[in-house]
């Protein structure tokens, strides 16, 4: 294939993934979250814009598009402005290695990198750079505390997440996400590795700063945390980054532990979407079930529970593979 063809394919894929994430994850995700939250709290949720409030987020986006962009006088303007691009980009870079399904022509994936899992671990942790930039650049006390909390929280939970990823890579003998999905032909890794699955899910909730690990933007203490000073579309881009990251984490959990796009009867892409939204539902469910942690409890949980358990699980799995599978 000629290079112009390759270039065109890459651009096409990028635009497709961006618009898909913006519509299906950010816009529909926000609506879903508000609807399910309403349902769990015995209220209706958005109801007035469009049938059953279906167009609510579109109306919100149009509203945000018309708002003024305010940069506080004391802020570091360069860092303040560029943080807005780092967060959604870091979240969206995760989608490069996620196989959405399979067709006659091969797996439906932007690029099947041979170090896919490691790549995911790297890009998903890039978000913290953006959050720290936003917190520092705003020159606002709430934003700074939010940014710092986020940094310590996200780096702490990255280690148990890495251990869970390595356990799966060990079983599959590969870091390519496509090969890991292929290796789950008989059993989902959630069945073989329930502990790693739980560790991954917990770390994923912490990495995307959601309740019960939402100290980063604890509304009752920090206003809106690291994006307190952002207005209009910049605020919307942070939302895009946040929901994009949440869906990326869920998609990775589906790929690594729930057999990816595998399933009977229905087409593969549909299976992937069903599993993805089931996990998103779990995230929202957790949000309305648990109260927020304190920061010492949060860090203790990562360092004194998840990391030792993750290490023990890794050694046990390695031992199991050595004894049983040789």
């Amino acid at each position, binding site marked *: 294939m000629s290079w112009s063809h390759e*270039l065109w394919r*890459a651009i096409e*894929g*990028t*635009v497709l993934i*961006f618009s898909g994430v913006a519509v299906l994850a950010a816009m529909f995700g926000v609506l879903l979250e508000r609807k399910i939250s309403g349902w769990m709290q015995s209220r209706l949720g958005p109801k007035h814009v469009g049938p059953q409030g279906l167009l609510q987020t579109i109306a919100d986006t149009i509203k945000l*598009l*018309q*708002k*003024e*962009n*305010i*940069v*506080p*006088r*004391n*802020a570091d303007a360069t860092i303040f402005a560029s943080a807005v*691009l780092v967060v*959604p*980009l870091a979240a*969206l*870079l995760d989608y*490069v290695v996620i196989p959405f399904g399979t067709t006659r022509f091969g797996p439906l994936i*932007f*690029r*099947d990198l041979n170090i896919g899992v490691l790549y995911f671990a790297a890009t998903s942790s890039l978000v913290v750079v953006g959050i720290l930039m936003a917190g*520092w650049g705003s*020159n*606002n*006390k709430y934003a*700074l505390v939010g940014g*710092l909390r986020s*940094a*310590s929280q996200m*780096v702490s939970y*990255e280690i148990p997440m*890495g*251990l869970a990823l*390595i356990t799966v*890579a*060990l079983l599959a*003998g590969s*870091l390519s996400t496509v090969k890991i999905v292929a290796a789950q032909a008989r059993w989902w890794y959630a069945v073989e590795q329930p502990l790693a699955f739980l560790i991954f899910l917990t770390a994923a909730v912490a990495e995307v700063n959601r309740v019960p690990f939402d100290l980063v933007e604890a509304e009752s203490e920090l*206003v809106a945390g690291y994006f307190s*000073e952002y207005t*209009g*579309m*910049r605020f919307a881009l942070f939302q895009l980054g946040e929901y994009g990251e949440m869906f990326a984490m869920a998609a990775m959990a589906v790929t690594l532990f729930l057999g990816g796009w595998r399933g009977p009867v229905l087409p593969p892409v549909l299976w992937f979407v069903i599993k993805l939204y089931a996990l998103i539902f779990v995230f929202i469910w957790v949000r309305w079930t648990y109260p927020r942690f304190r*920061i*010492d409890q949060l*860090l203790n949980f990562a360092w004194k529970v998840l*990391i*030792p358990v993750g*290490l023990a699980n*890794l*050694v046990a799995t*390695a031992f199991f*593979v*050595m004894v049983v599978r*040789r």
Partner: protein
Amino acid sequence: MLLDWGYVAIFAIVGTLLAAMPLFVIWLISPRSDYPQKFETYESGVPAIGQAWAQFNVRYYLFSLVFVVFDVEIIYLYPWAVVYRKAGAVAFYDMLVFLAILTLGLVYAWRKGALEWV
């Protein structure tokens, strides 16, 4: 291999442009009005006292230092996991030693109180 990373690079470049697009749109259509109070730092409605760029809790540094140690060591586990099946029992015992040292580091940090939030 190189082509793979070419794809990723294009994703990053085109992605940045796409993310910047709504910012360009609001630059075109958003209203602008100037009055000094608007550009104040938000502090619950009262004038902000001092800068936010001041001293903050040293604990944050400690956790990032411990993180750097652990994360660098965990990077070594990725290639190990891939070749584990082929390498056989040697890989298991070698990594056991490596993980023992890693665990020792965790115990050390724990006992030293680096993981306590005071």
